[in-house]
Every structure is written in C-alpha cells, then in structure tokens.
C-alpha cells in the first residue's frame, strides 16, 4: 500500500499503476440499460490522483476546452478534499459529472499529460476525466443539492433557444448575473442530445436532470414544447415578448443519410430516430412505453463515430443477436472515443472495417433483408491527413441484416434558420458568429453545434459560456 501522507517523488508517482475503472460485466450489461462504467472507489480515486505529477507548466490545462485547473483539483482529491476538488472544477465547468463521463479525454486533456508521455502510452495518462467524474459523483451522493448564489435582478430578460449543453451553460451564467432567463425547448424534456441521443448506459438521465433542477432553482424558466421559428419567431421574442437578447443553441439536429438506393425501405433508421425512440421515448421499457421500436435481430450500423457506437450498443441491448458496425476506414481512423469502441467490442458488436454500404436490399414488402457492401483499401492521405479509403472494384458482397441504422453524422438544424433568413450562415448551414458569439442579427447570439457543426458537449458548453459573457456585457452596457 502506498503511504499517501508523505510526499511522493515523481518516480514513485509514475510507478503507481493506472487505475482501471470498474465496469458492469459485459454479458450482464448486454441486456440492461444501466450505466456501464461504475466509477472509481475512493481509494482508487486517491491512488489515481497521486499519479499526477503536479507539473508546473501543466500541459493538460490548455488541452481542456474550458481550461480547468487540472492539477489543482487532482491535488485536492489526492488529499481527500473532494468538495474542494469540485469547487475548483465548477469554476470552469458547470457540469463535471457529465463531462467526466462523455468528454473525449484522450484527444483533449489527457492527450498532453506528462505521465502518458513519460510512460510512452497515452492510455496511461492520468485519468483526468474519471477523477472529474469521481469528484462530481461524490458530491451528488454525499452532499445536498447546492444552488449557486444568484445576483440581484438586473431586470433584463434573455431567451435561450435549445436546452442542450450550450443553452444550459449560457442559462446558468446569465442567471448567476441576475438576468431573468427563459429557455425554449422543442422537445418535451430539456437536455438536448444529452437526453435524447446519448444513452442511459453512458450518461444516466438522472444526472442531467439534476443539473437542470439546479438551474430551475436558480430561477431559470424552462418552456418545453416550444419550437422557435414555428410557435413563435425570433422577432416575436424580441419585439412582442420583450426579451433583451437571445442565445441560439439549437444544435446539429438534422440527420444525414447516405443517399444510396434502398435508404427509404422499412427498417432503415437514422441514428437520431433510433436513439430518440429508445432514450427519450423509453422504448426499451417494453410493456410500459407506447412508442414502438423496430424488432431487429441483425443490425447494420453505418458510421464510426460516437453516434454509431451508441446506436450499435443500444441495438445490442434491445435484443439484436448480431450487430455490425460498417466503417470504410480502419479502427485507427474511427472518430469514436476509444473507451466506447472497447466497450462495444466487449458487448459483442462486430466491426467490419474497410467496408462501405452500396445499397440496401428489401423484400417484396420493402422490408430490409440485407446490405450490399464494397470492400475498401487505404490509399493516399487526404486533406484531413487521414489515408483516403479507395474502393476495390468488384468486391461487392451482401451482409444479411433486417435493419440498418445510418449514423454518419448530423447537420445543423435548418428550421430556425429557414424562418429567420436575416441570420448569416456558412455553406454548411452553421451560424456565423464573431469571437464573442454574436450573430449578424442584432441582439442575437449563438453557440454549440449550430455554430461548430457536430462537436462535443464540453465545446458546446464553452461556447454557451462565452456568449453568456458577451450578452452580459451587452446588457450592462459595457461592451
């Protein structure tokens, strides 16, 4: 056992083995919706925290999009001061329990960690995300729900469109400054992708709901079932309803399809549809939920990102016998988080690399019976530096499946912009903002996926906070 009371040398710290996160048994979790990763025990957390070298230059900090004082909060965990750790986390990150779970740490904070570098293995970097999760969970399990103090009312009103991470973060910061904040959300539940997209087994909904409850206690009003652009226009919100400013965080909600023959057959779904049925509409609670889900036994998931992993792992849990992830490059190029890929493999998801769908085949009732694929090989690197997949002529082959989930990404949600042509967008339909988050329309700001394209939870939050700061400046007349 390591004596945590005396100061450790860097060498001793590097000798501590990386702490593995306990996880639910893969066989058991194939058939339940409960969280897969179980979180560190206190002892594990403190050991993992001791692995941090407390680097003076802290190369991890600039790799975190919200620049958390990483060595600072880790030192507190090492000392057993979990509450203090959380206070440091919350200075930069409003939702550590969420980010600790879903951040792609291996390409963010942990990618530059000195420990990973010294051990020549990025997987051996300090598990910053897991520690962040630990501190947040500890408070959730041991502490009262703490509502941050709110400044006296400024009398200014801000409308926030969309309740994803961008909107929630903006709302929190603006409410703290004493502005009256109303969030408008199209769905019947707030949370954006964190509620309808990312599955329960990766991000328990209770965690997201708790963050939202804190916001409500801070006085933020949330109006669900309200589609800005249809229920009311942006102009109406400013002119009729008297909002002083608007933040748009409407996300990248438009599912992309492949444009291949057979895509409109019965049994072909966008990942958005599949995951919304399963998560938001709780189709997995058979017998309780009224929303049906397609009873698929052999499922092909097209794509290689987080969305594809979520869809594939959800299909496993909903009773599919074989689930294939079809990706046209190799595992190395897959954009999904390494941990999700590993979990998917443990759960029996079958990866078919260097293959791509050419068309989807149906029976006489237009139900999916298979997918015709082409094999690929890697050619020259393309603009993104990744080697371009090149199809092998004549390599057509059929995989028998009864369902296909298209998970090749999302584009920006067009509705709000269709109905508000005064907001300038780029050629991808992303809202153009200046560096403060301001759009081309007066008093209207934007952030998150609607500006960045499909990004991450933490980036969306960062953008929400940045825009909140400039809205605050604008409202107080010191911009």
């Amino acid at each position: 056992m390591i004596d945590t009371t005396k100061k450790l040398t860097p060498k001793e710290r590097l000798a501590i083995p990386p702490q593995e996160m306990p996880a639910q048994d893969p066989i058991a979790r194939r058939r339940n919706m409960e969280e897969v990763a179980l979180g560190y025990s206190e002892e594990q957390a403190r050991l993992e925290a001791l692995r941090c070298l407390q680097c003076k230059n802290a190369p991890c900090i600039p790799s975190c999009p919200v620049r958390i004082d990483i060595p600072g909060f880790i030192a507190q965990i090492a000392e057993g001061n979990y509450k203090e750790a959380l206070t440091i986390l919350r200075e930069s990150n409003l939702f550590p329990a969420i980010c600790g779970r879903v951040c792609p740490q291996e390409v963010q904070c942990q990618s530059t960690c000195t420990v990973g570098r010294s051990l020549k293995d990025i997987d051996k970097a300090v598990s910053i995300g897991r520690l962040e999760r630990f501190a947040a969970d500890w408070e959730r399990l041991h502490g009262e729900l703490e509502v941050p103090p709110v400044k006296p009312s400024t009398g200014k009103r801000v409308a926030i469109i969309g309740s994803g991470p961008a909107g929630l973060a903006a709302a929190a910061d603006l409410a703290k400054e004493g502005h009256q904040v109303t969030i408008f959300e199209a769905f019947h539940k707030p949370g954006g992708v964190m509620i309808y997209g990312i599955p329960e087994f990766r991000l328990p909904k209770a965690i997201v709901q708790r963050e939202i409850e804190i916001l409500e206690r801070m006085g933020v009003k949330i109006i669900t079932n309200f589609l800005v652009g249809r229920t009311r226009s942006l102009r109406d919100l400013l002119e009729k309803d008297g909002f002083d400013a608007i933040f748009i965080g409407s996300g990248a909600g438009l599912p992309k399809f492949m444009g291949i023959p057979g895509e409109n057959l019965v049994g072909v779904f966008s990942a958005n549809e599949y995951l919304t049925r399963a998560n938001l509409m709780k189709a997995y609670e058979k017998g309780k939920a009224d929303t049906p889900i397609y009873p698929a036994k052999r499922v092909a998931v097209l794509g290689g990102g987080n969305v594809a992993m979520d869809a594939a792992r959800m299909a496993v849990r909903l009773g599919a016998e074989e689930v294939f992830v079809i990706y046209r490059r190799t595992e190395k190029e897959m954009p999904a988080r390494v941990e999700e890929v590993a979990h998917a493999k443990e759960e029996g998801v079958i990866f078919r690399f260097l293959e791509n769908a050419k068309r989807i085949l149906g029976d006489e009732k237009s139900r999916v019976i298979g997918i015709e694929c082409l094999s690929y090989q890697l050619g020259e690197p393309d603009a993104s530096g990744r080697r371009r997949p090149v199809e092998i002529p004549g390599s057509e082959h059929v995989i028998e499946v009864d369902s296909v989930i298209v998970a090749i990404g999302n584009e920006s949600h067009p509705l709000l912009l269709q109905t508000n042509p005064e907001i300038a967008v780029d050629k991808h339909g992303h809202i153009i903002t200046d560096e403060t988050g301001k759009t081309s329309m007066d008093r209207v700001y934007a952030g998150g996926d609607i500006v960045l394209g499909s990004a991450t939870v933490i980036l969306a939050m960062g953008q929400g906070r940045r825009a909140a700061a400039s809205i605050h400046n604008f409202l107080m007349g010191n911009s």
Partner: protein
Amino acid sequence: MHRIVSKKQLSEEVFRITVEAPYIAEARKPGQFVIVQRNSDYAERIPLTIADADPIRGTITLIFQTVGKSTHKLAELEVGQYIQNILGPLGRPTHIERFGRVVCVGGGIGAAPMYPIAQAMKQAGNHLIVILGARTKELLIMEEEMRAIADELIVVTDDGSYGRKALVTEPLKELCQASPRPDCVVAIGPPIMMKFCAETTRPFGIKTIVSLNTIMIDGTGMCGGCRVTVGEETKFVCVDGPEFDGHLVDFNNMMLRLSAYKEIEQKAHEECHLEMKLKEMNSAKGKGNP
C-alpha cells in the same frame, strides 16, 4: 399542460376535442399540425392536424379517429383533464391562392384536416367544390361545416348508406372531365385514397395537393422517421410538408413505411381494447353491488 375545454364524439370512431394552447392558436395557419403527447413518461408523440383554432380564447380543435392505442387513450380524456404536451404549429402552411375552381376531397377522417384548408380556399375567392367520402354513413364527419362554406358539396359512401354510392375518385373524375375544369385539387384521406385521387387527376394535368400522414416522432426535422420519396428526392414530411405535389409522391413506399410497426401496434391496440372492456365490466360490477 393543456386543459381540454370541450369534447364531442362525432361518430363511433371519431372525436373532436378543443384544448387550451394559446401560442399555437395564435400562430397556426391552415394545413399545419401539432404533436400531441398525453404525458411525458411513456406516452407516444402523435401528429394531429389543427382542425380549427380560436386565437382569442387561446384554444385549438383537434379531430381524430381512434385507430390505435394512443388515439384511444386520447379519447379517454374528459373535459377538464389535461394533455401534458402539445407542440406546434408544425409543418408548412397550405399554399392558399386564388386558383379559380378548387376541389377539396376529404376521405374519412381526412375531412377534418381539410376543413381549415377549404375555408381558406373559399376566403381567397375560389369557387369551392367539396367531395366528402366515408365507408358508411356513421363515419361521415364535417358535413354541416362543409355545407356552410362550399359552393358545391358532393357526399359519397362506399356502401351507399348515405349520399351517392361511390368512391371519391368517381365524382372527382367527372369534375375533371367537365368544363370548366378544376384548377386545383386538394386531397386528404387514407394514403390509398390520395394515391388514387392523384392518379385520377394526372391525365388531366390538374395540380393536385396531398397531405401526408407518415409516422412521426419529433415533428421538427430531427429524426427523419417521416421521410418520403417525392420525385427523386427524400423529403421530411414534418418540415418540408405535410403537403406535396400528389403526382410526385411515391405512395407505395409511403404506405409500406406506415406499416413498419403494424404488428406491435395491433397488439397494443388489442390490449388497449381488452383493458377498456375490463374497466367497463368492473364499473358495471361496481354498480351492481354497491
């Protein structure tokens, strides 16, 4: 929360409810719809057309047929009770203009969503001909309302129990052959009816608008579940529609997609009926032995 302020059974399977929804009542235009969800926990989100609205009282009227579990559960709600979630108005409004002669074909429950469109077409100065069709007399709805606004009203039933014994396509064809010919046809009803209305007008080259009732989840363009093939393109009914050029819609694909959950829905529907029966029996028993 949306309180039900009035409720009326229009036929054995058709109900009309008026509910509080002030924003929607103010913003809605003919042809638009809402997504209704009884409660946030386990209920389904189902699309229903806004049949009428009163912006002053802040209410909207929905007319629906009990075809499955969700519509049955909706029909169980009484005046004073609440629907938790209503989202809208959704979809693009009907393109209303002064075409000249307009024929509105409402089949079955389709007469309900047709009403606000017919009303607007009339107001725009069109000569309005309405064809109402139903399987049988008991299922015919909106006759009085339509009679009040139409220049000509033609009623048909499949079994001849009321009006003319015919399918809606018969009088439609006659109108197309007559002179002056209609300048625009709007058809709303079961997909098969809309398909054949479009086939009827196609040889005459008469513009034909149909309103598609695909399966939907969000109704905001985010899931793609409502997609249909129109011309060579994939369209999302909830944001690009619900109305499309009937001559371009791939109805066969649409009908097959509508049946995606048929078995599950049928089972849910049967269970729902069983439950209703049990309830009825229990309450009868309750009355028998106080």
